[in-house]
């Protein structure tokens, strides 16, 4: 119970350090009236306010800033630092389902295509959600309608798609020939071996 020095004998610098410390550990915002309770002798709201404004200045250019919210004063991180802090979160990045990825691949390589085209190629019905997911992401949109019964929308990839994948144009997509070569390699045993064994 050493009970701290009296306000009179505390320099304002020391008062500021105490305010700063309390604000750094507080679980929520602290009102000026609460901050005044830190001291054995009430320094008054004017001094506390003055010191808070000094602290705001002191913390300029740092990753954390002192701000005034509805509930009082609190330190919080600047939004620019979110990108770094996010890296500490161990959450695994979400992934798109196979349906979404295949639909995206078909639209990217075969655009403009209708939903029917996608279904023909994939051999299964494409759910509305799949296309909505890609549209919401801003990666595909309807660029026209095919002049066939039902006038189905024609999907194509957008500029945002190129930007997000770091492409300058669709020609920078991995060429299908290469993909199919890989596929041939993968499928070699399946297609070639029976032939060999059959001769």
């Amino acid at each position, binding site marked *: 119970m050493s009970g701290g020095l009296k306000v009179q004998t505390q320099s304002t610098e020391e008062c500021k350090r105490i305010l700063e410390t309390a604000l*750094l550990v507080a679980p929520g915002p602290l009102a000026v009236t609460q901050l005044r309770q830190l001291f054995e002798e009430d320094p008054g709201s004017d001094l506390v306010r003055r010191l808070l404004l000094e602290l705001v200045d002191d913390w300029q250019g740092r990753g954390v800033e002192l701000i005034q919210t509805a509930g009082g004063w609190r330190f919080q991180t600047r939004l620019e630092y979110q990108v770094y*802090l996010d890296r500490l979160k161990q959450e695994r990045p979400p992934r798109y389902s196979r349906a979404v990825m295949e639909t995206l*691949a*078909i639209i990217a390589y075969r655009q403009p295509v209708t939903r029917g085209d996608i279904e023909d190629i994939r051999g299964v019905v494409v759910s509305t959600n799949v296309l909505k997911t890609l549209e919401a992401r801003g990666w595909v949109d309807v660029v026209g309608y095919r002049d066939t019964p039902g006038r189905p929308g024609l999907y194509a990839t957008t500029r945002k798609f190129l930007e997000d994948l770091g492409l300058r144009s669709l020609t920078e997509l991995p060429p299908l020939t290469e*993909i*199919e070569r890989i596929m041939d390699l993968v499928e070699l045993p399946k297609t070639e071996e029976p032939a060999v064994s059959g001769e």
Partner: protein
Amino acid sequence: MSAELASPADPLECVVGRMYGQPIFDLPKDLYIPPDALEVFLEAFEGPLDLLLYLIRKTNVNVLDIPMVPLTAQYLEYVEAMRHHNLELAADYLLMAATLLEIKSRMLLPRPPKAADDEELDPRAELVRRLLEYEQVKLAAARLDQLPRVERDFEWVSVFVAEKVVERLPEVSLHDLQLAWLKIARQARLKRHHTIRREEMSVREHMTMILRKLKGDVFVVFETLFDPALGVAGLVVSFLATLELVKERLVVVTQNEAFAPIYVRRAEGADAID
């Protein structure tokens, strides 16, 4: 054997008091404890070992050479007092009383001459070992309690993290796209429904570009679909893309008469006019 145990000692002299900063209980010089204080007195002890340690340390006797007779007598007086006041007496206290009596009686017995050489130990040895081990723990506990501890002596800093609520979107790489196509192609091969045409990617890209230029229900002059900045190759690709769009009936090209301006319009616009 020292008879010091019965002699009064200043409570401040005892180890217990020193380690905890102040005496646990202001023990009267004799054994008399006011009945209402007995309970409080006993609560100050963590058990028989603690009480014994107090009795020993209070009189400054050598713990390695405990005078069993006065110690046992004093201990039993406390136990008797507790019983007398109908205090709930833990079994541990009674067990210790039995142990003390046993040690005392063994010490009174003459040692068997044969066994003395090898296995016969001081009957007090085990008690001393326990007392010292307990004292060690007791001191360690006190020092542990003095270590700065979070929430009592200091706080962790925890600054609020300001976050824009951003939905975490899946990241897609070219490799992912490649894998997706690989699966499609493999599937298509297995079904042999589709032959995947190999096509110039640039043509399909230009098809999309032209369709975008044709947004809305308007005719666009054919020439404006071509950007000379693309160079000859670019113009050829644009032209091929236009032909492909016509072939796939995605656009309508109209020319009212020879050499008149050629107009292009998205195919679906034709319905509105027809």
